[in-house]
């Protein structure tokens, strides 16, 4: 009988943690590969002092400012169009919803680079724009690289954003629409005060990702002479042929911008998750 009692007695025994051999091996292999990569960069013909020299050069910093400016300008256009077209898409007016569907189809379908070139070269087919008789401008004066890039990137972003917003609107429970109507709210007030704030919780994480994506997409605007980071880095390396060094400088700034925005995203998501328990903002 005592034997049996001993058998179930475990408090005096020592626990030997299990060894995760697979993990150790995987980690070892990956570290080795990483070390090889670092060594390649150190031994490679990279003049690190050039990287340091141009990291804070005026032209690069101006490029950074322009990149940030374009990111927010294009996103502002994108979100505005996205919300408008999402509401059009779910509206009961068949003309509006068809137009919204067509918008998404066209501008999500065509490559961003192509859309940039289209807007920038608009003057070739429309030498003048405006309302005849009222005002008119020469298209080449209006379609500066900034305006062309903002329109092209913003409008194609709007096509993606409208799908995100529509998903957000549909995610709100039908009971919320009814409760809002039952206290006498009209369509717009209901959307603004009740539906959109709740849809935000669903809309924001993907919009945050797209904002971060936009930081990098703005580099496409270098092909239409918009002087953002990559464009300015290219101008420098055309002159001094330090191609890789300047690309590394540009990478550093893109990464920095993305990092800052990721942190901001975390805080914004936390704000819109208020009132929702057990749903921590991704962080």
């Amino acid at each position: 009988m005592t034997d049996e009692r001993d058998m179930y007695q475990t408090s005096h025994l020592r626990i030997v943690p299990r060894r995760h051999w697979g993990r150790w091996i995987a980690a070892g292999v990956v570290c080795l590969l990483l070390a090889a990569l670092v060594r390649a960069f150190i031994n490679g013909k990279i003049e690190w002092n050039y990287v340091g020299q141009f990291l804070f050069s005026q032209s690069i910093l101006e490029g950074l400012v322009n990149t940030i400016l374009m990111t927010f300008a294009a996103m502002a256009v994108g979100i505005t169009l996205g919300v408008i077209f999402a509401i059009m898409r779910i509206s009961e007016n068949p003309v509006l919803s068809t137009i919204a569907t067509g918008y998404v189809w066209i501008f999500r379908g065509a490559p961003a680079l192509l859309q940039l070139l289209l807007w920038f070269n608009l003057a070739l087919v429309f030498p003048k724009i405006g309302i005849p008789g009222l005002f008119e401008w020469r298209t080449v004066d209006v379609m500066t690289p900034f305006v062309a890039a903002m329109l092209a990137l913003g409008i194609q972003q709007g096509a993606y954003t409208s799908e995100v917003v529509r998903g957000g609107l549909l995610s709100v429970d039908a009971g919320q629409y009814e409760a809002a109507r039952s206290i006498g709210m009209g369509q717009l007030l209901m959307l603004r005060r009740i539906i959109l704030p709740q849809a935000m919780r669903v809309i924001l994480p993907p919009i945050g990702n797209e904002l971060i994506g936009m930081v990098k997409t703005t580099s496409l605007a270098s092909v239409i002479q918009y002087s953002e980071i990559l464009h300015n880095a290219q101008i420098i390396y055309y002159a001094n042929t330090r191609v890789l060094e300047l690309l590394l400088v540009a990478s550093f700034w893109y990464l920095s911008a993305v990092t800052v925005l990721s942190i901001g995203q975390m805080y914004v998501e936390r704000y819109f998750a208020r009132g929702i328990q057990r749903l921590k903002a991704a962080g």
Partner: protein
Amino acid sequence: MSEILVKAIDVTKRFTGFTALDRASLDIRKGEVCCIIGPSGSGKSTFLRCINMLERIDGGAIWIGGELLGYRRDGDRLYEMRDSEIARQRRRTGMVFQRFNLFPHLTALQNVTEGPIHVLGEERKAAADHARELLARVGLADKMNHYPSELSGGQQQRVAIARAMGMRPELILFDEPTSALDPELVSEVLDVMKDLAESGMTMVVVTHEMGFARGVADTVAFMEAGRIEEVGPAKKVLSEPDNARCAAFIRAVHK
């Protein structure tokens, strides 16, 4: 007898290939508490939703306080109302839902002040004072700044009642306000409704709580298959109904 507040005549509602309301008629007087009972799928919710214009009716008409719902009369023509006019008409009626439908991103207090401030254009301070008074009245003075997710079902439903009252409606519609609640939370909501009834509020209550109907209702209407089969004084309908199916339903519920 007081004047008629709600007059529904031959209200008909069809969903694709299915008649949910079949010429339902009902009068509700000012200050009256009317309970609607009936088996599941008989059209009780649909009838309430028609009174609150959450559903468009296919036949018949409803008046609230002498005002025809959904149409403007001009000579011998009825013009369909615009959304904004419908929204304005809806303000006379409050609604309490089975699943509460509180706004989850707003606190209890904000849930109550939302309509008064943004729909009625009340002063923020005045709306908040009124809301605090209402929340205290439904026994939630200490929960004003809680979000719905931090409240029990019974507390949420009491906030929903305060939210409806915040709009100062002439009539409140309740659609099975206690059937989503745990049994021990039912009475706290019924008590609030009883208090509201005693204060003279006109109420239409869809419910399976026969005790509430017996104790609080002035009239009871029995619905089946989209029709109002019997309506009359609560005591009469609940104890000696004329309609055989009504009698069978009441017997079944009491088992």
